[in-house]
């Protein structure tokens, strides 16, 4: 700053100039809707007539009235949705990451037909979610589904299983379909990272006679970790917002309802803009909290290696 203050100021000004379009767009598509949602969560607005509403403070979140608690935070179905969402996110993202990395390691070796494999791998990811959700609903249908038919012919089950209806199974079925769909995404990012790993690391390991499993955990994994961290955060944010698969495959049962499905139902089915906005706002905070926790958990490793 001491010398060339004008130049520095000039640079700051042009920086703002270059940032301005993005800031405007962000304000329009992110900040404004978020602010509106939080604003409506403090009102009793309904979809029937959006021009008439009044402020109710934090009643949509938590309220105590004549010996009873009200509000999203005490709504048993919201709590069920919170639990479901966390279970879904943690299990699906963990399995997708493990499977994705395994597939990427396989694809990183050259073998005949590798190009074809890579293309085929992308098919589940390329199919629109609504289509794959409908397709799986039919495949998992208890009476006519091909999954039950195959398992019965193989003698693995004696009677058809209601994959999507059985409360104990429906979440597992949805997670299974999500893994089918998004493992390719993780595999692709992991594969890209693997191809950046310098070959000499492996050569050095081979010269030293290190066991391949140890090479994977001590050489490969640390080197692709930053890329994996990005893939996982993408997946985690996506999983926390899970809507389409659950909504199409199982509707709004307690066994699978997620925070997004809950918020949509309050907003749209029940036209309760206030309560639905409160649920959406809570979803926002839950995701923000998850992200912060995750970033904090990942930071020491990244920094540690850089130092």
């Amino acid at each position, binding site marked *: 700053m001491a010398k060339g203050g004008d130049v520095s100021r000039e640079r700051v000004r042009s920086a703002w100039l270059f940032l301005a379009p993005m800031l405007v767009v962000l304000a329009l598509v992110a900040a404004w809707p978020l602010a509106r949602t939080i604003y409506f969560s403090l009102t009793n607005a309904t979809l029937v007539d959006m021009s008439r509403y009044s402020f109710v403070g934090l009643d949509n979140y938590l309220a105590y009235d004549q010996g009873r608690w009200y509000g999203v935070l005490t709504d048993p179905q919201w709590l069920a949705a919170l639990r479901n969402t966390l279970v879904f996110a943690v299990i699906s993202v963990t399995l997708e990451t493990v499977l994705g990395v395994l597939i990427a390691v396989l694809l990183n070796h050259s073998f005949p037909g590798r190009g074809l494999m890579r293309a085929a791998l992308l098919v589940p990811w390329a199919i629109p979610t609504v289509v794959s959700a409908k397709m799986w609903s039919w495949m998992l249908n208890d009476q006519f589904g091909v999954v039950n038919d195959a398992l019965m012919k193989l003698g693995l089950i004696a009677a058809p299983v*209601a994959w*999507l209806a059985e409360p104990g199974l429906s979440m597992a079925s949805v997670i299974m379909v999500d893994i089918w769909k998004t493992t390719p995404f993780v595999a692709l990012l992991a594969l890209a990272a693997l191809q950046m790993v310098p070959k000499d690391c492996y050569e050095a390991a081979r010269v030293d006679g290190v066991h391949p499993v140890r090479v994977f955990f001590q050489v490969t994994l640390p080197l692709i970790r930053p890329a994996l961290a990005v893939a996982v955060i993408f997946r985690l944010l996506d999983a926390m917002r899970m809507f389409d698969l659950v909504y199409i495959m199982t509707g709004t049962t*307690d066994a699978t309802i997620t925070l997004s499905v809950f918020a949509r139902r309050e907003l749209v089915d029940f036209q309760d803009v206030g309560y639905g906005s409160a649920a959406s706002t809570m979803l926002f905070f839950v995701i923000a909290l998850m992200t912060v926790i995750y970033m904090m958990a990942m930071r020491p490793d990244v920094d540690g290696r850089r130092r």
Partner: protein
Amino acid sequence: MAHFNWPGPRAWFAAAIAAVLVAAGTGPARAAAPVEISISCAALGVELKLCTEAARRWAARTGNRVKIVSTPNSSTDRLALYLQMLASRTDEFDVLQIDVVWAGVLADHLIDLSPYLGAAPKAHFQSLIRNDTVDGRLVAMPWWTDVGVLYYRKDLLAKYGYAPPTTWQEMTRIARAVQSAERARGNARMWGYVFQGRAYEGLTCNALEWIDSFGGGTIVNARGEITIDNPRAVAALDLAGSWVGDIAPRGVLNYDEESARGVFQTGDAVFMRNWPYAWALAQGEGSPVRGKVGVVPLPKGDPRGKNAGTLGGWHLAVSRYSKHPAEAASLVAFLTSAPEQKARAIAASYNPTIPALYDDAEVLAANPFFGALLPSLESATARPSRIAGPHYNRLSRDVWRAAHDVLAGKPAAPRVAQLEADLDRLKHRARW
């Protein structure tokens, strides 16, 4: 058919133009030109085909054009779509097909039809007209009415020497006996009973039928008091819970109307609870169970109980945001008229909302069970939508959640007590 003296389409058109003139006061020139009216039709069974054909007949008679907008099969999804579209004041829909329980929810978005319809509403079931009258405005016209009925396999019952059941307990026994006998003969996919057990509005309809037929009331009574927590309601739900996995597939927990019909019409179920629309399809050409199906009112809770079928049905309304309300109302008048209702009844067994049509020989020839249905229709159990008004969906959600839990295996007594508490909480908030 003879006693219908409401004005023909030409007179309607004149009235329509006059109405637009009065309402708008200016620039009526466009009203006379042919306009395009969009109507939302459901695609359940043959609904879309019938709706399209009828709307085209109107278009041919009036010189206007129609555009068919198809909507989701699930009524819950359909309402959501309507609410989203109407909240944005879209003119995408002129005429909407609405569920009998939505009149209260959607009333603010709909026009008063009475100025356009003259004496036509007087010919319909007055209970339905009352249902559609919100704050003195006639916001919808009944198109067809519905009541839950029990379908059974005539051939299978005859084969094992049973008469159609009159109580739920009897139904359970017969279903179990026929199911195991058929399975013993190698028909491994046979089930006793299929119904709507998915967590959605259809389950509320089923649950209300069980509870009411046991004398357990209608969840909320006419004075708005919550009556669900009683031993008869518990007994009804416990019996229903015992069906799942025994005479009904576990998959019934995710069945809607069409899934249940899929199983029954393939020939894999002895009994099915459904609306009357399934009759024409089950008896249609190419149906594996054609000629083997019978229909009776839903069973009683016990020999002294009553037959209870939930009142359903679909009505037609005109969106307040329609650019051509007069033409839209004319389409509603045409579709809900006696000749059109008769045609629908004969083609696809949709129950007319005009009592006179239940004496019509042609209608009865196509639907032999209609005569027996009339008492069920007249005494059909209404869902508590009038009491709960805009909060009905939330009420129904609480009911179907509880019923779904019981079907999935929870004991009914504590779950019903919890439902009472949930509804009490809702009532307190909604102040009905």
